[in-house]
């Protein structure tokens, strides 16, 4: 369904566009990525001043009430400009979790700083052997008086080196792969016995391995109900996917435009690339892949806004389909740019790397294909099967 933006949404979009056009061109971005820290606090401040960090949150929590659609609008523009600042990590993941399952006191303690751009958060859920399953973790949290004691190692935590706070998932009960028994904790990133080993990611961001060696966390920092962390993370993943799909759509939009533009000017054999039918048809398929991705991304964000049932199945479906589409477009964009596409100087390769990274975050297309396929809604009922089976001579 096509979204006709409201006046407010249109204003949000045009103001993000203006800010990024004026202050986040590709050269600026390159310089930001090359700094020691790898991100720009000044730009983050500017985002917050524009209200972006408050945009999706409900008005009752002090936000602007924009919901998933506001996130979609912001993330699409961030995707077009390859913004590296941790909007997804701080606002969508951590902010979303706090708003969704946090207590009144936690919301009041954390959300104002997030919305004001004062604090940076990261979500530490993955582990060395967890792959994409929230329940497959070995980190533990022992309840001891007024505290929980956390031990274990979280893997590839995006944005952790920049963060003031981490949300850490740890097992409070049950065995590996038990759906119940995983809990979430808001942990001070500078807490004693918490060690970070930072590294660069393929798309120019920073992440860290996070080792927790008997880290003491006050019981008041338990986020949501004890033992129900997986369900909270699953809902969080749906929101993350909706945001990542929008970001991918932004990147795909720029790749298609750049490729088309290049094909109209670059000449070989005395003719522009765009005059060759085999390349025309390739670019038509890139166009179709983008159109379908826009449609699914809008559909997903509308479904999440409306709280429709089976939104999680749709999220997995979109992650898969948009993931395939983005990979196809990114690979073809490099191919059609020829040798230039391989050059670090051109932005094309950087979009490619961001898309490769998106396709890993929260599960790759194959993982979500199986999750989509195994959802109850994807299966025919046993009644249908009986009917088919009896339909024999």
């Amino acid at each position, binding site marked *: 369904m096509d979204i006709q933006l409201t006046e407010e949404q249109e204003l949000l979009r045009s103001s993000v566009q203006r800010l990024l056009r004026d202050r986040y061109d590709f050269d600026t971005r390159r310089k930001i990525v090359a700094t020691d820290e790898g991100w720009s606090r000044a730009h983050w401040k500017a985002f917050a001043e524009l209200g972006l960090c408050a945009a999706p949150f409900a008005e009752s929590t002090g936000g602007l009430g924009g919901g998933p659609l506001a996130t979609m609008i912001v993330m699409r523009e961030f995707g077009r400009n390859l913004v590296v600042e941790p909007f997804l990590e701080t606002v969508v993941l951590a902010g979303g979790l706090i708003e969704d399952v946090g207590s009144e006191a936690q919301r009041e303690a954390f959300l104002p700083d997030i919305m004001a751009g004062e604090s940076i958060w990261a979500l530490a859920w993955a582990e060395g052997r967890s792959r994409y399953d929230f329940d497959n973790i070995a980190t533990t949290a022992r309840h001891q008086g007024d505290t929980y004691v956390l031990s274990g190692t979280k893997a590839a935590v995006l944005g952790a080196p920049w963060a003031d706070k981490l949300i850490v998932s740890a097992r409070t009960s049950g065995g590996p792969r038990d759906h119940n028994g995983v809990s979430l904790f808001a942990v001070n990133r500078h807490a004693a016995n918490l060690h970070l080993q930072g590294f660069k990611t393929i798309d120019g961001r920073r992440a860290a391995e996070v080792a927790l060696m008997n880290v003491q966390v006050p019981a008041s920092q338990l986020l949501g109900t004890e033992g129900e962390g997986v369900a909270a993370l699953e809902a969080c993943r749906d929101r993350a996917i909706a945001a990542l799909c929008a970001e991918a759509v932004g990147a795909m939009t720029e790749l298609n435009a750049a490729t088309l533009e290049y094909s109209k000017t670059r000449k070989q054999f005395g003719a522009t690339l765009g005059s060759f039918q085999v390349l025309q048809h390739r*670019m038509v398929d890139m166009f179709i892949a983008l159109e379908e991705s826009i449609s699914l991304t809008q559909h997903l964000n509308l479904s999440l806004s409306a709280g429709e049932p089976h939104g999680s199945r749709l999220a997995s479906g979109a992650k898969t389909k948009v993931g395939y589409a983005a990979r196809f477009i990114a690979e073809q964009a490099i191919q059609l740019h020829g040798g230039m596409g391989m050059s670090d100087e051109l932005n094309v390769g950087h979009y490619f790397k961001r898309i490769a990274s998106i396709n890993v975050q929260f599960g790759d297309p194959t993982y979500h294909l199986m999750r989509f*396929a195994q959802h109850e809604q994807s299966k025919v009922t046993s009644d249908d099967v009986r009917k088919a089976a009896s339909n024999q*001579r």
Partner: protein
Amino acid sequence: MELSLSKEDAAFRDEVRAFIAENYPKAMRVPNPETDLTKEQMLLWHRLLHKRGWIAPLWPKEHGGPGWSITQRFLFEQETSRAGTLPPLAFSVTMVGPVIYTFGNETQKKRFLPRILSGEDWWCQGYSEPGSGSDLASVRTKAVRDGDHYVVNGHKTWTTLAQHADWIFCLVRTDTAAKPQAGISFLLIDMKSPGVTVRPIITIDGSHEVNDVFLENVRVPVQNLIGEENKGWTYAKFLLGNERTSMAGIGRSTRYLKRLKQIVQTEIAEDDPAFTEFVKEIARVELDVLALEATELRVIAQMSRGIDPGPAASLFKIRGTEIFQRITDLTHQAVGNYGLAIREHPFSANHFMPGPDYGHTASEKYLNSRKLSIYGGSNEIQRNIIAKAVLGL
């Protein structure tokens, strides 16, 4: 996936749904409606729709259309296709009808339109020739003026259901000296005219849908010329635009996917590695359908707001046909050994066909659906259209 509907539109949808449930002829529920029905059986539903005033959704009210909004038209299309009803003959209602009311004179409108609506006249399409497939402008069938008549000589081919036809609308060359597109006229020819011969073409699935039509010194009254002489190309292109609407075929693909799932569940054990392979492939196609459906709804929403969808029809044709071909391919694979068998034509319940009922049409559907990416402007032509109209190549 549903369009968000107003109360009136929802009531309309329910009305359509109920009408189909109560009235769709049982005689038309045969294994393969496209090939197994007699002319009289095919017309049963047409006549019921005519009586209800719903036979020509696209037509303006003054010519006998129902006066529906874009949303209502879409809902009608969605409901009829979800219910698996056989669409009324497109050559009559969707193709030649609009050409006649748009470019024909008053006499032609009065003479032909009511008989199209009622189903009294069955039309076929005289476009393709042995030397003119996708390159329609190269038609060679000649019409030479002789007093009040044209004398027509030529050979039309791939003429669908010409064996039932009362009339054929033809592209004929009236000026051999002009540029290919400039010398073509649009002529209506009575199939009972002396010199018209129909010869069946049996396609690879064994069915008789298409024909050769030979025109030898056929005398056609000049009153049967549509519009102006040598302006036929304009009318032909107008008609092709209509032909390509609603080729996304979401309802049909959804029905066939559900059946494919039933077959896989019934035929293949869950611990067979092939089962997982099918589950993955089916999920991929299901996501393709989902993305196309979301795109269709997005275009419908745009059109309702008065936005020109551009060559969206080409996108629907490409993806809709690719998807359905894939489904028939997977279905043929899923029936296993019985994929070796094929029904005999013409269909008779007396012929022996081995294996479960649900597999009986798998072979012929797989074979027959190869045509989808060829007819109505091949998918390569559709890509050319998008390359030119959208990408500006």
